[in-house]
Structures are given as structure tokens and as C-alpha cells.
């Protein structure tokens, strides 16, 4: 989700081994670098700004990921239930469209919709005497969540929808003969069949959430966005704004380990459940 600064920077792909290597040194500007072992990592563990960015992303993910996946699931079920193939392809394309839009363009577009004075939402609310500060202190994370949900719901919907299309028609036929209602078909056939795809989508979403970068970065030109709002934003500022590439490398390695651990944990949980079934 978004892009990772290390990967997209014009100087090319900084590979993981190099990142690991860099993180073991300390270097002031372009003066000779000094081997400092794990000192950078010790600092990461005490870095309040980084830890708070992890806290923010955790809170963010706990709300945003389920909302997005439920929405994607609802849309996929709706699409799957449509009889007309033409409407199915029309809707699947239009739900998917936000994902096809470059993140930066999407961010700028939403930035305009969110601006206090120019927002069409606020102009609609004006007669009621209300005005929402979408990019203010309390609104910012919700607004970001909305942008990311808008972008990625379609993507997740496609994953779930493909899984639904893969369900053999005989199952539905058998259910109908047994007199199952639409809701029962969803509950006892579609949902169990789509569960593995849903788990996969959840895994992708967790990894993606940890990498959010472009959306808050773009909004930063329109409002105050803390440089440590999200871990990747903090890594970006540490490296490319403050020039502390070595420490940023250590931060990136720690973030990678957290991502890896979360993914493994998620997979283990799924396997455990599958075995229980």
C-alpha cells in the first residue's frame, strides 16, 4: 500500500543486505563511517517518535482493515449475485478504478475535497451551519483511512470476487434443491468458500498498512501531518530530510522484522484454525 521510499527512490533499489549493512554504522554527513554495531538498534527501541508511529499504525489498522474488508466482501457478494454479466463487469471495473489511479493523484484529489474552505462537502453542510475540519487534528487519521479504504476496497473486492466466481455452480444448485434461502447460501456456501481469500486479503492489508507512505506525504503539503505519523513517513524523513541514512536503515530493518513477524503470526493463526476445522 503506497510506496516504500527505499524502493522507489531515484537512486535505485536499496537492497535488504545493504540496508542491514548500513544500519550497523554511524556516519556524520559524508565523513568516514564508524562501525557502531547494534547501537542504532538500541536507539530504535528507545525512540519515542518511532514507537508512537507504530502505535498509531496499529490503531489505524485495527479499525481500517476490518472496515475495508467488510466493504470489499459486501461488494463482492453483491457483484456475484448480479445476473447480468454486463453490469457485473461494469461495477467491478468502477469499484476497481480508484486502485488504478496513481496514489499521489488520489491524495491530491482527496486533499481538495477535504480542504476546509473549498470542500464541496463543507459547502453542502454550510446551510446547516456545520463545517468539518477533515484535515484537522482529530479528523486527519479518519480522512486518511477513508482515502486508503477508497483506494484498496476495489482491489480486495477483486480478490474476493474471483474466489466467489470459482465456487462450482453445482453447490448452489444443490442448496436450492434443499430449499436454501439467499442468506443461507451466503452463510453456508459463499462465506466458507471465500474465507481463504479473505485471509489472504487481510494478510496483504496488514503488510500494506505498515507501508503507508504516499497518502500522508501528499497531505503534508495541505495541512500539518506529523513526520512520525506512520513508520514509513518517519523513516523517509530520517533518511532523506535529516540525512541520517544509517539510523533510517536500522528503523527500516526493525519495521521489516515487525512486518515479517506479523505475517508469520497471521499465517500460523490461519493454519491453526484450518487444522481445527
Amino acid at each position, binding site marked *: 500500500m503506497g510506496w516504500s521510499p527505499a524502493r522507489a527512490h531515484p*537512486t535505485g533499489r536499496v537492497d535488504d543486505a545493504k540496508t542491514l549493512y548500513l544500519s550497523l554504522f554511524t556516519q556524520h554527513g559524508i*565523513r568516514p563511517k564508524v562501525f557502531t554495531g547494534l547501537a542504532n538498534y538500541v536507539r530504535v527501541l528507545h525512540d519515542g517518535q518511532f514507537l508512537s508511529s507504530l502505535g498509531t499504525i496499529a490503531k489505524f489498522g485495527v479499525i481500517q482493515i476490518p472496515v475495508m474488508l467488510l466493504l470489499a466482501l459486501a461488494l463482492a457478494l453483491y457483484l456475484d449475485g448480479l445476473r447480468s454479466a454486463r453490469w457485473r463487469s461494469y461495477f467491478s471495473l468502477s469499484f476497481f478504478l480508484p486502485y488504478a489511479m496513481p496514489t499521489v493523484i488520489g491524495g491530491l484529489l482527496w486533499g481538495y475535497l477535504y480542504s476546509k474552505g473549498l470542500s464541496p462537502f463543507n459547502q453542502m453542510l454550510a446551510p446547516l451551519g456545520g463545517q468539518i475540519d477533515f484535515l484537522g487534528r482529530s479528523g486527519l487519521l479518519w480522512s486518511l483511512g477513508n482515502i486508503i479504504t477508497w483506494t484498496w476496497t476495489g482491489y480486495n473486492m477483486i480478490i474476493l470476487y474471483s474466489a466467489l466466481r470459482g465456487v462450482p455452480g453445482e453447490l448452489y444448485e444443490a442448496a436450492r434443491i434443499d430449499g436454501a434461502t439467499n442468506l443461507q447460501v451466503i452463510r453456508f456456501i459463499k462465506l466458507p468458500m471465500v474465507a481463504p481469500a479473505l485471509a489472504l486479503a487481510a494478510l496483504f492489508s496488514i503488510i500494506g498498512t505498515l507501508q503507508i507512505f504516499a497518502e500522508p506525504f501528499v497531505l503534508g503539503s495541505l495541512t500539518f501531518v506529523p513526520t512520525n505519523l506512520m513508520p514509513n513517513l518517519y523513516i523517509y524523513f530520517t533518511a532523506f530530510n535529516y540525512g541520517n541514512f544509517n539510523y533510517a536503515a536500522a528503523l527500516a530493518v526493525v519495521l521489516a522484522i515487525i512486518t515479517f513477524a506479523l505475517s508469520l503470526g497471521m499465517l500460523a493463526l490461519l493454519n491453526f484454525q484450518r487444522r481445527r476445522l
Partner: protein
Amino acid sequence: MRKLWLVAAAAVLSLAVAQTAPSLPSYSGPPVTLTFWSWVPGIDKAVAAFEKAYPNITVNASNVGSGPNEYTKLLTALKAGTGAPDVVQIEYDFLPNFIDFGGLADLSKYGADKYSSLFVPWTWSQVSPQGKAVYAIPQDTGPFALVYREDLYKKYGLSVPKTWAEFEANAKKLAQETNGSVQYTDFYSTYAPWFMGLVWADGGRLWTHSGNSWTQSLNSASAKKVIDYWGKLVDNKYAATLPDFTSELNSALAKGQITTLIEAAWGPGSLASRLGSESAADWRAAPLPQWGTDGTFHSGNWGGSSTAVTVQSKHPDAATIFALWLNANGTALGLNWENGGLFPAAKAGLDLPALHDSSKNPSKFFGGQDIAKVYADASAGVPTDFQWAPWFLYANNSFNKYIADAVAGKTGWSAALDAWQQDVLNYAKTQGYQVSGQ
């Protein structure tokens, strides 16, 4: 006989002039090509004029983004050891960062120190902070003035404020008269250098250093006076908090919802191009309001850039010549004012006819007013010994955080500066700087 004497006198006189203003160096080396990063609009015109004057030097100018966007690329290229341009535009406040990083060449090795007298004094102390090594050539400056909508001042019966007390009285009067629908001014809450410029105008200092030890006073009495003053304006809703350079601010200005701004010398040009025909010719400039009435006029500075040469340059001699010519040659200064709105750091630039041409922007946008005169006076009132720290970038970002707290009413304004001072101090210490707070 008398005629001959006159000729001789003229010759002596011109010699004297040549001595006070050293002529720019010539280039006799082999043909070279320089790369140049700058975000000044239309800088290519001055570059073309340079290539004409120096046929052996070719300059490839490119715009890789403005301000921080350029700095991230520069920092990365410097760190990578390759890919940095020969010549690069850097704002004064960001210079110590790059000097400390080890990325800028000392131009005094190529004779740049001989040209200090060509530039407004405070700019030279910015590019040569220790007074010896020269890390850049001053390009333009951003001394502060007050810019206001004359039509709105007439409509609401406001007079141009000479002091900050009058400024506040205007704000109050306007709020009462319009029931708060028109705000007097705007507080750029996400632009630390704007706030710092106002502290600068008050004679405050944020950083000083001797040798390797630094003193930081982001929460000095002067800084607190300035922030409390603006905080009161914000709390009373006299001042909006729309970030600069946003379409939201442009729209509020065009609609007459904000009447007055504190703008640097490059601000009028920026306003003219951002607002286009909206509110054109309604704007005027006046000297920055003063705190006291001690008779001496003070102003501060926001932004302004310098032209530096990176340590990666293979032709630092030619690069130095280019940097000097671009910022001290009359033709270049005229072109840069017209196309890029650059208010020159070179003394000679302040008298250029082009700056005072009322038929062209930005003067045209200001109803034909000679705004360059207002800003030249402002430039003379800027204290010369203001310094930035190598960890300015962090201080810059950190400011936004604490001021956002204050804008939201979560902390007091002075308290925000205290927290800011502490946070930046901690950061500087973890970076290994010898720094104490004051």
C-alpha cells in the same frame, strides 16, 4: 587642457569605482559543462545570457523540485557519492545543514571571498558563517513587508498599521465590523521560517555558536513575545491559519476574506502569479509594523536562496564563476527579477531599473506601486548576525507539531515554544552536537 584634465579625472574615478566593486572573473580554461539545479522560474534565460558571455562554459539547468523536494535529492546524491549537480540552489536556512553534511565546496579557494562587498552584508554572513570559508554565493533575499488589500482597507475604514499595536487594533476593528466574516490576517502555522523571520525582526536570535559549541534559544523572551502576539490573534480568530501556497489561501485572498499578510520580498511575485487577475491592482505594500517606536526601523527575513557548488563538482572554478555571475551581473539580476521574482542579494541589484518598472509584475499587481523600494528599505533593516543551526531541518518540522497543538488549543503558545526548544535540543544532542539551551 581643461578637457584633458576632466578625462584624467574620469579615468581615476572609474578606477576607484572598479576598486570598490570588483569586476566579475573571466574564464580562460578549457570548455566545460556544468549541471545546475534550481527551481527559480525562468532561470534558463539568465543561464542563456551567461553562456553567451562565457562561451567556454555550458550550463545544463534543471528543476528537480523546489525546496525540500530538491534537498532530499541533493542529500541522497551527496551521500551516494555521485549524481549531485555542480551548482545548486539552497535557501539560507538550509545551508548549515549541507555545510555540516560536508557536501559544499569552499569557494574561497576559487577567489569568491573577494566579492563579499558586492552583496547586502547580512547575506554574506549567511554564506560564510565563520567569516573564512565561503560555501555559496547569495542569490536573493526575503526581507519582510506588510502587504494589504487597499480596496478592503478603504471599505472597512482601516489605516496602514505602523506598529504591532495598530495592527492588532485593525484586526479587532475589522472583526467587529464584519462580524468575523473577514479575517484581518493569516498566521502561517506550518512555516517555521516565517515565524523565525518575525523573531529576527525583533532582534531575537535562535542559535549562536562559537567554535563547536552551540546555544539554542527557540523559546527566548523575544520568540515568546512574537508567538504570544500571534497566538492571541489566532485565538481571537483575527488571524486565519491557512497554510501558505495552498489553493485554499488563494481563494480566501481572492474573495477578500483576508486583508493583510506579512510577506517576504518574493511574496508579491508569488501572489501575482497565484492570483492572476483576481484582486489584481488592489494590493499595496508597506513597511513591516514595528514593536517599539525607538526610531530605528527593523525587519526580518524569510527565505531567499544562495547558489552553492557541491564537493562532487569536477569544475569548481568554472562553477564559482557561474554562481558569481548569476547573482551579481546586472543582466542576470534583471532577468531573474522579471521571470522569477527574485529580489537580489547583490547591492547593485537594488537600483536596477527593472526592479522599479511599474508596468510589469509584481509592481503591476500592486497597482503600479514601487514595491521594490519598500523591500529595499526592509532589506536595510534586517539584523546581520542571525544564524541557523545544522539541525534546522529537524527544528523546522518539529515547530509544526507544537504549533499545531497550540492552534488546536491543546497547549498555550509560550508552552509550545518551550516544548519545541526541549524536543529540538534533545534531537541535536542525540546527533552529537555540543549544544545547550538558553
